[in-house]
């Protein structure tokens, strides 16, 4: 389980210290999908980067199965929607490079690549130059790259961006299988409420770097006296009470 305890990150922007997120506590258990929701600039990516060990905490603590995040890089797969691929390499070479970074045994790598390519429907792309992929294709390859070292926890920052409907449906199915069958713990951030509602077992709502609320969709709807997650979110974040 990933445990986030009173996590905070402060940076200096134009000589003024700014808290990007503060006093956030939550958990990502194995086998569950946690939805991280919040408006633009709420601190979703910052929280994900902290959990991935890419940034340093200014306060609080994050542990992965009891270990500090820095020592848990093999357990975590982080997908950032803005992450890039090596454009001069083919998709397969990109994946092989990722495998070499994680010291995966050579005999397993090709099998794993084929397995992921089939699951994510990118088998046709393996020989294609990464620089020639469409945004949606690129996102699928990024997903394959994130999953290549078989991490126990997945941090997916806006993974459905740029994907067409069929790809979104496939991805949803794929992630649900990962959580239920392989017991991966998944933290997924998205702007699309309906998407999160369909995927997540548990929601974490943050706004302006602070934790607003967390619980199941039903809990949040009940507490905000809303009919659906979108309405609950509008009430919580924007204090808008009537959504048509």
């Amino acid at each position: 389980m990933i445990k986030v305890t009173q996590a905070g990150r402060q940076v200096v922007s134009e000589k003024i210290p700014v808290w990007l997120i503060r006093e956030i506590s939550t958990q990502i258990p194995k086998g569950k999908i946690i939805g991280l929701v919040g408006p633009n600039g709420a601190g979703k990516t910052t929280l994900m980067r902290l959990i991935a060990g890419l940034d340093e905490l200014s306060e609080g603590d994050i542990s992965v199965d009891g270990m500090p995040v820095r020592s848990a890089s093999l357990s975590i797969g982080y997908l950032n929607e803005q992450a890039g691929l090596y454009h001069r390499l083919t998709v397969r070479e990109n994946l092989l490079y990722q495998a070499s970074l994680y010291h995966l045994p050579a005999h397993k790598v090709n099998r794993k690549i084929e397995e992921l390519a089939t699951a994510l429907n990118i088998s046709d792309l393996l020989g294609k130059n990464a620089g020639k992929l469409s945004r949606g294709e690129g996102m699928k390859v990024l997903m394959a790259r994130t999953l290549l070292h078989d991490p126990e926890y997945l941090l997916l920052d806006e993974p459905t961006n740029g994907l067409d409907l069929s790809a979104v449906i496939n991805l949803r199915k794929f992630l649900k299988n990962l959580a239920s069958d392989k017991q991966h713990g998944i933290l997924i951030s998205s702007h699309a409420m309906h998407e999160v509602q369909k995927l997540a077992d548990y929601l974490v709502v943050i706004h302006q770097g602070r934790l607003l609320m967390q619980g199941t969709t039903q809990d949040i709807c009940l507490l905000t006296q809303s009919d659906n997650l979108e309405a609950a979110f509008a009430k919580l974040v924007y204090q808008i009470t009537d959504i048509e």
Partner: protein
Amino acid sequence: MKLLHSGILKKELLDIFRDWRALCFTAAISILVGPIILLMIANTLASFEARSERRIAMVHGIEHSPSLRIHLQRETATIIEAPADFEQLLKRMALQDPVLIVPSGFEEKWRAGEPAELTIMTNSANSKITANTNRLKRWLSAFVNERSMIENSMQVTAMGANELVSVQEHDISSLRAQTSKVFGMIPYFLILACLYSVWSGAVDTTFGEKDSRTLEILQSSPNHMYTIVCSKWLAVWLVGGVLVTIAAWSFVPAQRMMPGETLKSMLAYGPGEAFHMTMVLLPLTALLAGLLMFAGSVATTSKQAQGSATAIMLVSTLIPLAGHIDPSEETSFQSLMPVISHHRMMGRILEGGMPSYLTLGVEMLICALLTGLLLYMVAKRLTAQSYRRTKF
């Protein structure tokens, strides 16, 4: 902590070779530009040399002065009768030599002690003619002096008691100065080759990772950033080292292709020199690869990356000029400061001396230490915290 990661090294090499346009450009600049420019300048110098060896006196009316004919022949000049339309030809710059006009009755007037006049018709707008005009003037001046002394001696002393002193001036100083300048350019070309051979690779492996947003996969991988940086550096250095080696050896055929035996003999550049140049240049290439990688790691925009890389290239190529202020004196700073000391060592190789193994060893050690330090700084810059700070 491992120093190298074979997967990263392999990927970086693949990446460099896939960007074949940049590689071809780099190779062309590093390998070909030096020898080509050297050959072009050598050709120009050879034409100067040929012109300086050209001993032709184009005369109109040489039959009017047999003594001048004898004098010019003694000067080993080939006397050519000027064409009838020499004035027009000179105007059109169609002649390479000035025309000496000897009027009829010149010799008789001279002997009678009357004022006699010789005319040199030239065209100062034609730079090619200038050297030949000066040479003709020298011959005439010697002729006038000689004749005057003979006339005087015949009056005062017995014939034969007088020894005519003929001062032969063979001016090769300007040619030597020009050739030394040309060959002094070789170390500059080779330092440029070091820089160009690693430039795009070094910046691409550091700033390129940020620019293409692939740095995160390196940061989140279980490898130490120093391992990643060292592997990247090795790939850049390997490619750069090969190009620099070829660049150093490319002056061997260039020297053989140089026109003019004088020039060829003035530049002793064979396999021995090329080998020693390579030994001097490989550590420098390693250091410059590290320096350019550091510039790439610090940059946050492509303009910054290009700007700092250009600044490094400019400083590295100009800094050896510091050693030219007083080339006779070598301070410990100059002998230890990379680039300046490399430049001096290359200069010594071109002069026929070879750097001692101790000097080479000290320079290698300095380069290794500085490269290690730079790579450590690059690793620090590329770790997550540093990267994050630069974003804000």
